[in-house]
């Protein structure tokens, strides 16, 4: 199995990224619709999706701009929503850090929730993969999703208000995230970290600038690591 041709890891990644089209397409469509309603031109909306390339942060920024929030608050909130990607970056650097700089620069640009989730799952399940197999897998997983994010934004601009409410496009995002999270509940430590994250995020949701989510994430991460240490200690004594 380890002698499988390198090209095949690109296609394995591609197949794993494919289901996320079900989510990325409605999400991109919705962004195109909402941004156009908020008064963005088609060019601005397309630039937003291709330059920032981060759905949740784009929606957060759009929402605050529509409410005439101050410039610094808009930028700080949208970047706070994206801070989780620093953790993705750190986590991926363990597996992809030895790649040449230009490849790491490209990986960073397309490092989104979906590509991170499927890649890290694969890298941890198959730690014997070579660097080049990992890189191929990552770009494979990104190939179906990333261009379609921009295409779907364009479709949303074009379709505008003609999408009916019963399509409930808004809920594509939570369903996608839940489908990614559920298979990650591998150990008690993972489950406890997830519960802490949920409880704290809800309790602290009143904090300004999305700080509640950041605090919840940091605490949940520390608790998860501590539970792992405790379980290892119990297993060895």
């Amino acid at each position, binding site marked *: 199995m380890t002698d499988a041709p390198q090209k095949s890891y690109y296609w394995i990644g591609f197949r794993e990224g494919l*289901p996320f089209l*079900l989510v990325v397409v409605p999400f991109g469509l919705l962004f195109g619709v909402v941004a156009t309603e908020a*008064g963005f031109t088609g060019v*601005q909306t397309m*630039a*937003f999706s291709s330059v*920032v*390339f*981060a759905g*949740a942060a*784009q929606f957060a920024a759009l929402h605050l701009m529509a409410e005439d929030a101050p*410039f610094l608050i808009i*930028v700080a909130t949208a*970047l706070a929503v*994206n*801070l*989780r990607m620093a*953790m*993705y*970056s*750190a*986590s991926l*650097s363990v597996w992809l*850090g030895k790649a040449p700089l230009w490849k*790491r620069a490209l990986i*960073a*640009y397309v490092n989104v929730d979906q590509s991170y989730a499927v890649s890290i799952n694969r890298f*941890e399940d198959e730690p014997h993969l070579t660097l080049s197999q990992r890189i191929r897998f990552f770009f494979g997983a990104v190939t179906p999703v990333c261009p379609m994010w921009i295409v779907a934004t364009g479709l949303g601009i074009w379709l505008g208000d003609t999408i*009916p409410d*019963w399509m*409930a496009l*808004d*809920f594509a*995002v*939570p*369903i*996608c*995230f*839940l489908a990614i*999270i*559920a*298979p990650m*509940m591998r150990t008690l430590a*993972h489950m406890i*970290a*997830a*519960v802490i*994250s949920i409880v704290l*995020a*809800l309790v602290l949701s009143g904090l300004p600038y999305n700080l509640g*989510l950041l605090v*919840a*994430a*940091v605490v*949940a*991460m*520390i608790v*998860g*690591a501590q539970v792992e*240490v405790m379980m290892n200690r119990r297993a060895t004594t």
Partner: protein
Amino acid sequence: MSAGYIWTIIIVLGIGTYLIRFSFLGLIGGKDLPEWALRHLRYTAVAVLPGLVAPLVLWPAANGGEVEPARLSAALVTFAVGLLTRNVIAAITLGGATLFGMIWLLGAY
């Protein structure tokens, strides 16, 4: 909103987001991280994503931030299917079916 203002936001957010994504991949690429750091990173995704999703599920903006039965049941089905089958596409498909089924049953729109 002026065009200049919109473009400033797009460019600032684009640069900021890219720097966040590049941070560790760019700075410490190739260096080995200590075990305690790796242990924390294992919990990154389960620490961020559930907290991101929870308010969207419980207080959906589409329902004015109030609990909404179709979205709540769709969320529970998606999570349960994902947990039992470890299959992302099965979870998305059945969760989506639950959402549309419940919206139709409740006549929500």
